[in-house]
């Protein structure tokens, strides 16, 4: 898949994945990889940026299978941001689809 496409929509997918459930890094990479094929090198810096921009909060939670895990939780500001992103994406995707339909005629 085109790298630029992936890059554009990655933020939206990452944020949306965490809306209903807090996740830790590894889990999140797995989830996002189901939608687009990305590697850790792309996702972790993005997580760091979203955290520093206060769209995410992180906390450590004990786990039975090893050291405590760092969980990512979406903040109110993050929810506002992702809703905006989603609207923009839907509009954008619709416009592109319309354009392509026109070109097929």
């Amino acid at each position, binding site marked *: 898949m085109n790298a630029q496409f992936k890059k554009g929509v990655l933020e939206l997918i990452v944020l949306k994945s965490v809306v209903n459930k807090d996740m830790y890094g*590894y889990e999140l990479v797995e989830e996002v990889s189901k939608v687009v094929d990305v*590697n*850790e090198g792309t996702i972790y810096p993005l997580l*760091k940026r979203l955290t*520093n921009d206060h769209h995410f909060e992180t906390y450590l939670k004990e786990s039975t299978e090893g050291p405590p*895990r760092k969980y990512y939780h979406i903040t109110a500001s993050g929810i506002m941001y992702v809703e905006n992103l989603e609207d923009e994406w839907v509009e954008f995707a619709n416009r592109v689809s319309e354009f392509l339909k026109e070109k097929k005629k």
Partner: protein
Amino acid sequence: MKKVEFIDIIRTNLSVLEDREIEDIVAEYEQHIDMKMANGLSEEDAIEDFGDLTELTAGILEAYHVKGSAVSAGSVNKSVEVKKGESVGILSEEAAEKASDFMKKAGSVAKDIARSILKLPGKFIGELKKGEAVTNKRGFIENAVHFFMKAVSILIRFTFRCIKKAFMFGVKCFKWLIGFCKKYFKLAGKIILGFAGIIIGIFLLFSIFGMGLSAVLLVLGYPVIGVTVITGGVTLICLGCVITIYAALFGKKDDNKNAGMNDSGSEILVDNEKIEIDDDCFSELGNNYIKVKEGVAHA
């Protein structure tokens, strides 16, 4: 690449960040690699999935608004200010413009007041020059200091008086309004007031919530001190309104001989004595009205 090497490179590239941040990041990645290995991947493969390490660390530094190219083996400066992102704006453009216009007007009014106040010392100086003879330099300086202090204290007292007057006037207006409603609309007035009270009460709850929320955000480090102060002020205003309305609706005079409302809608004359049904301190205008009526009744 082995895990040790991987961690070493990360630490070096991110050396410009605070130690706590670096260790936090390293711990997270180490755990990720271990989890991947637990799922069957080899150490090398797990690390390869992180891609190009220079790109990775450059991306991380970007998140801290540090230039990725600033990474160098010999960087000595370890403390970097972590720049948090900008907070979400609360006011829209128009609201902000209106607010700034109002502030400008208020500012110019304040300037006028201040200017007229500051003209007063000029008068003092004139009198000083006319009156006392300047004996020596030291005396003059003492005099100057003395009346500077005097001017400052006058200014302060004047300001307090203005504020107090404005506040009292506002309270008077509000009380008059309530008295007016009570006197001239009677039961309907009470219902309206009650309704207004409920609405303001709801508003109060929302503003308490807003104040609490912004206080929490303030503690978390968001720059929302203005919002906190404003919601706090709104809370106080709503509280004041609710209390005043409640007092207006349910307040009673101790020596009130008549407990109920008079249907004819005027004051009761008992033994030629004027008896106020409503709370006396409520409306000056109401009092004047009664006095007129009294005059008419006695006429």
